[in-house]
């Protein structure tokens, strides 16, 4: 064949083929897609309302005002929704395992994890990401942000790291599903519980919660800590103010844990299951 194709184009062709078919299929059921978009939007709004209702009764929570918590909620929900859009279907692994569809992945010449990740995409989560984005922008406008190059860099780095961290949480959970199967809800405690935790000011947590959702699953690094750093607020116990710059480290750590979990899971599947 004569067409000049770069190695990148060739290498990504299988994944692009699957993903574009998924997108076309979702858009072809127009009525369903609209319902999905609306409900996803509602989920975001309801979650924001849950935070907002608390501030009707108090002025500050965990040292943050409402405009400041909007930044935390916005960063957390934006990052989670984007990760959910691209990685959320990893939750379906138990179904794949029960139906034996995972075996089909073994018959294709791509890495298993990449196949699983690129096997689907949920465009409807875009609506929820918009709620997060709107909350973030509102918060940034209303809160007293000292704008500088560093502030913009911090925001960008934190948002990208947050997406990566949540994505890794989905992969970590998928690895654990190889063992749990029926007990998949246990991982929800940390993936979806993680999202809930990420939208809270970590300053309200006790020490055990700080260890679990501050560091082991570094949820505080996706939104709260960068916000504290951005606004120049004082840190809390175990969490100094500068820690917000370390979001990329948290993402790398979570991915290392996720890949390890996936490896152990696959090894178990090949060796033990049947």
């Amino acid at each position: 064949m004569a067409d000049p194709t770069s190695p990148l184009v060739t290498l990504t062709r299988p994944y692009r083929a699957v993903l574009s078919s998924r997108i076309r299929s979702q858009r072809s059921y127009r009525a369903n897609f609209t319902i999905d978009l609306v409900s996803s939007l509602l989920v975001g709004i309801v979650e924001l309302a849950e935070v907002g209702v608390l501030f009707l009764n108090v002025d500050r929570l965990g040292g943050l005002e409402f405009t400041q918590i909007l930044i935390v909620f916005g960063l957390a929900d934006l990052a989670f929704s984007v990760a959910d859009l691209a990685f959320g279907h990893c939750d379906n692994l138990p179904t794949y395992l029960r139906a034996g569809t995972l075996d089909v992945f073994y018959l294709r010449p791509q890495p298993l994890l990449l196949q699983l990740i690129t096997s689907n995409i949920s465009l409807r989560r875009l609506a929820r990401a918009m709620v997060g984005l709107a909350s973030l922008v509102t918060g940034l406008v209303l809160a007293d942000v000292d704008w500088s190059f560093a502030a913009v860099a911090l925001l960008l780095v934190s948002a990208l790291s947050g997406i990566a961290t949540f994505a890794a949480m989905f992969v970590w959970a998928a690895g654990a599903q190889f063992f749990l199967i029926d007990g998949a809800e246990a991982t929800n405690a940390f993936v979806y519980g993680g999202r809930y935790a990420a939208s809270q000011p970590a300053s309200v947590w006790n020490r055990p919660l700080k260890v679990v959702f501050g560091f082991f699953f570094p949820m505080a690094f996706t939104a709260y800590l960068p916000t504290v750093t951005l606004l120049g607020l004082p840190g809390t116990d175990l969490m100094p103010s500068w820690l917000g710059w370390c979001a990329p480290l948290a993402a790398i750590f979570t991915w290392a844990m996720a890949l390890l979990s996936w490896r152990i899971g696959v090894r178990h599947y090949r060796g033990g299951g049947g």
Partner: protein
Amino acid sequence: MSTDTAIIETRELGRDFKVRDGVRRRTLTAVDDLSVCVGAGEAVGYIGANGAGKSTTIKMLCGILVPTRGSVTTCGLRPVADRRELARQVGVVFGQRTQLWWDLPVRESFTILAAIHGLGRTAETARTEELVDRLELAEFLGTPVRQLSLGQRMRAEVAAALLHSPRLVILDEPTIGLDVLSKQRLREFLVAERTVHGTTLLLTTHDMGDVERLCDRILLVDRGRLVWDGTLAGLSRTVGAQRVLVVDLAASTPDLVDVPSTQHLGSEGGGLRQRLAFDPDTTTAAKVLAAVSERVEVLDLAVEEPDVEDVVRRVYAARR
């Protein structure tokens, strides 16, 4: 058979599963001491009862499961270590699980699979056309997979598994649930594929029609162990299964009860058609025919092979 041309080679292959039996854990041996060599271009039927270890073996051949003991090479590759390279050379049809995208038209599934296997535009078009033509897929190429009948879906599955022209095709219960016509079509296609491309076939099945029409060698497993490796005829002989000579005679004849080395099974049409069973070890069809011809003119004849299921049942019974 030299190792160079071996498509499948297993040596003392074994696989155990740990199963929970209430509180206690016990080990269940699914495959044990399996040593088999399948050469390029062979068509092998892998048969045995449910739970005899067939699926476990297939999963080990494809790199889905790691063997507990022994070694396995498929297409000269180590299935687990070289899984991705192996995927380019093997096509698998699982009768029970789909490789197609249920909400997409059949054609689109083929396009995606072509991308997955990195087929060039020309190769993709040529191979798709060949498969569409030979498996008669044209009429439902634009139909979403979930709307296909079982027979149509199975043909589409086979095409999907063969799109990248694999050297080895493994079919796990390919004809299960199909009607007679669909089975027939699928078998004819597989015979042609093998003749044209020299593809090696390994199929597990409960349908003995598949074995009789497609396979020149069978592997029979019982409780994880290989109990026969050879031709179907040879297997029938070892269990003393008899062949049957059916003769159409020119005139009504009394039952031929005293032909040497045979047993009279029955007559139809007032003795115009008679069935004689004989043991292939003590006599031959030619000798029996000659003996009959001495008495009455034979218009037509047929030799019935023993029923495969009957043979398998005899093997199992003898081992219990």
